[in-house]
């Protein structure tokens, strides 16, 4: 057995793979691994591509700092958002040899991965390190199941409303503070700027619709004990859906082409200066001005208004850094800590235009009073919401239940009530199957 391990290690060596393969196995056999002694070991790290325009220099610095601290190296492998979930699932199925040691995990994936026992429960480590009280509550909650926290919040984002400041000023419009104002503003825009889309009701964008469900006092689903039940057809939810889809069907502030749009197409339309006002993430303004410099200085942002003032809740999404159940758990936790706290957490947030997962770091950003950042920070701290924390909801999202509902309403195929009832039925079927 041992000989085979050595042989395998040396074959790997001759194949020109990591020179540390032999050394790594020795360390594992002796189990001598002290906490900070990572000499000769290498951690595999999976990071999502696209959050940071150029993450290479950042990880070079992290790698150097980590090696200085523990002696271990890191090997970063970049993954695509579109395919990563499947890749993770396959790796988890393959077990310890195939999963990374540390990975960026989208908050909505945490329940699914945790259920397979692939992720390390770090609740005690977080407490021991004195980090527990500084984490943004909504984010901490998103990765905590049955009291166990599966990783550290790394960065987060939230959607609010992005609008064309120049157009609003031209027509003396004010950013909306209630739903009525939102509706009236959009209608005025339709009249005065017929070439622009006043407010896209994008049929393929789930998180464009959810603020109105939450804002009307409704919910996607509610938990009772360990059972989930859909609430998307509750009277409040229906009221929210009615308002949101009504913007397209009654007020016609969103043309038919938008019916099949996802957030990507909305972004493309921003880049072509075709939009006056839309729901957008804290990462949106920079993405737009990068692609379309003409709009520099012409964008504004405002939290999504509440029905009669205040704010409607908006999805608080983000990424965790989680350690997987491999034989390098202790080292992995060291890396997670290094990246999600202090200097590196702040640097990552700055480079990516996202928000860090710690209150102390978030406060620093809020204090800068940037008009394109502050509204989002406000939305995140005061009106962030998460989707149902269960593996089933990931499946509901992947089967496009909410977007399917919105699309069938705005294309006129079914009434709000019928569509909501069907969505509720679809959700309950998936909830029932998973319990």
């Amino acid at each position, binding site marked *: 057995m041992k000989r085979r391990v050595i042989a395998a290690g040396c074959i790997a060596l001759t194949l020109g793979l990591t020179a540390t393969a032999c050394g790594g196995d020795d360390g594992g056999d002796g189990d001598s691994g002290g906490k900070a002694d990572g000499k000769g070991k290498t951690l595999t790290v999976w990071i999502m591509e696209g959050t940071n325009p150029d993450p290479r220099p950042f990880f070079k610095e992290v790698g150097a700092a980590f090696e200085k601290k523990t002696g271990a190296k890191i090997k970063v492998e970049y993954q695509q958002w579109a395919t990563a979930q499947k890749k993770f699932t396959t790796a988890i199925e393959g077990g310890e040899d195939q999963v990374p040691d540390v990975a960026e995990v989208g908050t909505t994936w945490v329940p699914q991965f945790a259920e397979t*026992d*692939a992720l390390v429960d770090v609740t005690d480590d977080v407490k021991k390190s004195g980090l527990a009280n500084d984490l943004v509550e909504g984010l901490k909650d998103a990765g905590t199941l049955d009291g166990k926290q599966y990783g550290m919040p790394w960065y987060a984002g939230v959607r609010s409303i992005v609008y064309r400041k120049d157009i609003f000023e031209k027509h003396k419009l004010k950013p909306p503070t209630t739903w009525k104002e939102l509706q009236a503003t959009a209608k005025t825009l339709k009249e005065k700027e017929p070439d622009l889309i006043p407010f896209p009701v994008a049929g*393929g964008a789930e998180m464009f619709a959810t603020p109105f469900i939450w804002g009307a006092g409704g919910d996607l689903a509610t938990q009772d004990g360990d059972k989930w039940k859909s609430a998307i057809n509750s009277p409040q939810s229906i009221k929210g859906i009615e308002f949101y889809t009504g913007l397209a069907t009654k007020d016609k502030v969103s043309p038919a082409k938008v019916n099949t749009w996802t957030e990507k197409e909305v972004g493309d339309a921003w880049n072509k200066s075709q939009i006056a006002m839309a729901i957008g993430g804290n990462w949106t303004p920079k993405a737009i001005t990068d692609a379309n410099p003409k709009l520099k200085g012409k964008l504004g942002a405002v939290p999504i208004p509440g029905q009669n003032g205040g704010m409607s809740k908006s999805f608080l999404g983000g990424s965790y850094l989680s350690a997987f159940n491999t034989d390098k758990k202790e080292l992995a936790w060291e890396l997670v800590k290094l990246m999600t706290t202090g200097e590196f957490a702040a640097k990552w947030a700055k480079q990516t235009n996202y928000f860090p997962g710690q209150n102390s770091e978030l406060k620093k950003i809020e204090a800068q009073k940037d008009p394109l950042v502050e509204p989002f920070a406000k939305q995140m701290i005061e009106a962030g919401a998460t989707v149902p924390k269960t593996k089933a909801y990931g499946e509901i999202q992947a089967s496009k239940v909410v977007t399917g509902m919105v*699309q069938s309403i705005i294309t006129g195929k079914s009434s709000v009530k019928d569509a909501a009832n069907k969505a509720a039925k679809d959700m309950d079927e998936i909830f029932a199957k998973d319990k």
Partner: protein
Amino acid sequence: MLVSDGSKDGSSGSSSLRSHPSDDGERARRRKKLTTLTRPWLLLAPALIVLIGLLLWPLIQVGKLSLQDYVVKFGGGKGTYTGFDNYTDLLTGDLLWKTVLPNTVFFAFACVGLTVALGTAVALLLNRLGPTWKLICSVSILAAWAMPAVTGTYVWIWLFSPEDGMVSQLADSMGLIDAETTNWFTERLPFYGIATINVVHHGFPFVAITVLAGLLTIPKELYEAGEIDGANAWQRFWKITVPTIKPVFLVVTILSTIWDFKVFTQIFLMPGGGGENPDVYNLGVYSYIEAFAKNDYGAGAAAAVLLTLLLLAITVVYIRTLFRQGEEDL
């Protein structure tokens, strides 16, 4: 002695062996029998091993999976056998009979019909062209064939994209539609219309090239004789061309049928085709959504098995027709 005998056998065939009936001949005959038995298998072995590894084994796994309720776990998932539950769920659902199967079947037949018709027409055209135009036309249809399905699909999506796409604007300027209120992708019929154009555009070059190859084998004399008998072009096509290269038509039809039944990419990538709009599910997309969106691997596998059986049934019918055709020719 024996060795040289053996090698001679191999090269000179059985008639020379029978002319030397001796003890050696008896052994040689047995060896020969063994060789005739094993040789085809030996020759087939590489292909069979590849087929078993890449086709049969996954097929068995999918069959097994379709009888299970499968849960992914760290280091290897757990399947519980649930009998034919996945199949009963699948076959008793409204979605399958009212949406998924009709979409799959009608779409496939429309695509096959149009692909073969267009491909044949293009082949006839190519057959009549001079060398320069033949080259130009062949290259341009091969370009359509060589285009990856993903790229081709996006081009068609752009052309038909509501309000901004070229086709939408043309139709709007001719007064056929109101571009601001029309979205082709949300209704079943226009959605599949666009998908059909896309699939036919991608599939007809293969038919054209294959049929052209068949056309080149038809002796010119047949047409001359036909012309003398007073047959017009239409009659010559149906009475001479079609019967002579019927096997070619059968092959391209079988292949097109198989390809068009399992179309996935072209549907999945279209707006609304990835699950938002259940009206446009076909079997491939449905199986994918069940398995990889809902993580219900068993149900997805059952849908995949159903698709396989459907294809198998169609192929068997075609192959039997093909063989019957071959016997008639003898």
